[in-house]
């Protein structure tokens, strides 16, 4: 959240420029992102992103909390897929403290993790189509997301801020009909997804808006630390579920999805394919998960002084990590959250400059950022 520097205000040679504030209160910025755009006609000559309007400094609050008390705060980072935020912290603490996770809890966490990926991608479909001017897919996506949130609520007690994962497993047992509800939901969703595709990635106007727009070269993507669907749409097969498997992912059978194009359309199509993949993973979990057994592992939550660990998971927006440093106390001495949206947002000026004003919206939407996670 900074002022423009004089160098940023210097005129671009050869351009008749007009500065436009895109945000912080703007329908297309998905929160309180502010981008100062210089536009010459409809052509973007400069783009300066400003963040921090939603900054809460979670990391400072977490320093004065115990490990268990930190988890509810994590939900608030990426509020669209709340459960996913809890997992890297739990994994890091489990590794440092040597807490075992029972097999059943691993499957539960994996299934809920993938369910949150579905929720997040549905919200993305809706809001992105809203950016592009179509209202209907937005309401369809939120209609189907309700069913997923209901399952989360019946299991965890919360809809978006569940506070469910804990060190060694999950906080409480699932409701008796969890697996039936889950498979029923993914069966329904699999039938509906072709409708979404007909309205979004396969629609001609959508293709006209997104094909060839905001191309991110793979080398640049890796160097800028881009992760998640943005990276894989650029052709880099990096997926922590495969490359550094955690929880039940080693036992599940799936392929890393990549696309070559690297443009907005590839990112959109890839997310649609990931929805199918998540459905398949949830089915595998439902098939393989043991129906009985403990949901919470035993272990003493004691981390020696000076231990540190960086642990990351593949969340719906990319690599969601936490750097944990312990001084042996009851809570984290320092926990830094590496949020995918924050890192992905860095390429925004590179993608924006030279595009048309309408394309700015098409690119920003396809990046799929959540400002709660960017500003933390």
């Amino acid at each position, binding site marked *: 959240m900074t002022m423009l520097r004089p160098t940023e205000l210097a005129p671009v040679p050869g351009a008749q420029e*007009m500065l*436009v504030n895109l945000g912080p209160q*703007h*329908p*297309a910025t998905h929160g309180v992102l502010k981008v100062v755009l210089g*536009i010459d006609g*409809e052509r973007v000559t400069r783009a300066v992103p400003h963040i921090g309007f939603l900054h809460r400094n979670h990391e400072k609050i977490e*320093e*004065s909390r115990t490990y268990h008390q930190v988890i509810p705060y994590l939900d608030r980072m990426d509020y669209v897929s709340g459960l996913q935020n809890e997992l890297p912290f739990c994994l890091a603490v489990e590794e440092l403290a040597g807490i075992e996770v029972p097999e059943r809890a691993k499957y539960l966490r994996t299934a809920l993790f993938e369910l949150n990926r579905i929720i997040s991608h549905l919200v993305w479909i809706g809001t992105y*189509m*809203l*950016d*592009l*001017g*179509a*209202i*209907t897919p937005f*309401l*369809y996506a939120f*209609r189907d997301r309700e069913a997923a949130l209901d399952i989360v609520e019946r299991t965890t007690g919360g809809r978006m801020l569940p506070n469910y994962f804990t060190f060694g497993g999950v906080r409480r047992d699932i409701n008796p009909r969890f697996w039936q509800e889950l498979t029923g939901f993914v069966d329904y969703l699999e039938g509906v997804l072709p409708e979404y595709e007909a*309205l979004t990635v396969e*629609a001609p*106007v*959508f293709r*006209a*808006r997104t094909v060839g727009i905001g191309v991110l070269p793979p080398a640049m993507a890796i160097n800028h630390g881009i992760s998640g669907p943005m990276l894989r749409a650029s052709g880099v097969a990096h997926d922590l579920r495969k490359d550094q498997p955690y929880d039940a992912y080693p036992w599940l059978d799936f392929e890393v999805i990549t696309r070559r194009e690297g443009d907005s359309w590839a990112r959109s199509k890839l997310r649609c394919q990931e929805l199918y993949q998540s459905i398949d993973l949830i089915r595998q979990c439902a098939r393989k998960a043991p129906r009985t057994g403990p949901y919470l592992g035993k272990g003493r939550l004691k981390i020696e002084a000076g231990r540190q660990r960086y642990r990351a998971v593949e969340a719906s927006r990319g690599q969601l990590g936490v750097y944990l440093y312990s001084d042996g106390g009851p809570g984290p001495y320092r926990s830094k959250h590496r949020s995918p949206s924050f890192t992905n947002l860095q390429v925004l000026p590179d993608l924006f400059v030279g595009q*048309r*004003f*309408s*394309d*700015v*919206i*098409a690119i920003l939407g396809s990046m799929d950022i959540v400002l709660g996670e960017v500003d933390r």
Partner: protein
Amino acid sequence: MVPQDRPALRSIPIPKDRRYQPRHVGYSALKRFTVRELLSYGLLFFALAALLVTIYSLLPWLIKQVPAFVVGGELSGWGQVVYGVLAAILGFTVVAVAALILILMLRKYLALVQNRYGPLHYGPAGAFQTVADAIKLLVKEDFTPGKADRLVFTLAPLIVFVSALLLLTVIPFAPGWVLADTSVGLLIIIAAGTIGAYGVLLAGWSSDNKFGLLGGLRATAQLISYEIPLALSLLTVAVWVGSLNLSAIVEAQRMWWTALPLVISLLVYLIASLAEIKMVPFDLPEAESELVAGFNTEYSGMRFGFFFVAEFGELFLLPAIAVTLFFGGYHQPLAGWWDFAEVLRGWGGFGEFLANLYGLFWFLLKTALLSWLVMWLRATLPRFRDDQLMELCWKVLIPLSLVGLVVAVVLRLVFK
């Protein structure tokens, strides 16, 4: 780390009357908007529209019934003034009521296909929602930005609205039911559309807002470009029929609609009129996710209401013109073969009135179906980008409309 010093909580009893209690009011309209309702409300709205349109169309005849205004079979000076004022007021009412009905229909239709209820709370199944909205717009503060050009800022919505109103004057709703039965009706349609572009540009420029300016410029580029295919496709009808008078064009379609030989022009007209209405997928001038609200960003109150009513009035008027030019206007389908209106006309004076109402029914039905097509597209499509919009116009529609013109000339030479 010092422990957080937290002020002690105030221990106060909760007053029971401050606790929120849901009001379980009698609520009869908790149901979906079904096909049956659609039909019944459609009939209701048809009756309303038919009443207004009838009065509006019979205005020249009515005014001549007052002896004071008639001098030697023509209207006197005062008569013309009164006639003009009455026509303006009635035209405003017709456009406003059409817009209100269409807004409600659009909202209900979108709600239906989006699995929601839509307006629900005012009137049966929310029927009076748009009336309530109109009243709200009327009583809202009429705000003018400090650095705006006040005169132009005030004038711009009126220009946009009047251009929509002009279209209404030349449309024949039934045989003889037309305000200005002029021999240059088609030219008036083209001229009115061009004036509207000025209003939008001035609105965007005068409001001293960057988004407004961008939206105004986009709208001007769009409206002026799409005037060309629109005018060319209208021209084909004139070539085919051989007249610029809309009544004559309608009469020429007694048996066969113009849409059959001129299908290319019809397609061009429909796409171009979508752009003229500024409806999805061509709603760039007011793309809310890019330009906040485009050229009407700074407008509020009734000035915004003028834009809104003009836009939805055009959602009625441009399909109405399409019906007049391509779909046989007030004629029932295949009227040259057997016409129920002729049967009604055989009953004498009142039968003629009924025949006109029958024609009005067909006219409004066709218009409603075309408007529904626009709404359906709006529910489905995202919007284009500005350069794609221009490419579509200059590289596809204009060549296509020229082809349509050539086809019309050849067909006329062959068949007539």
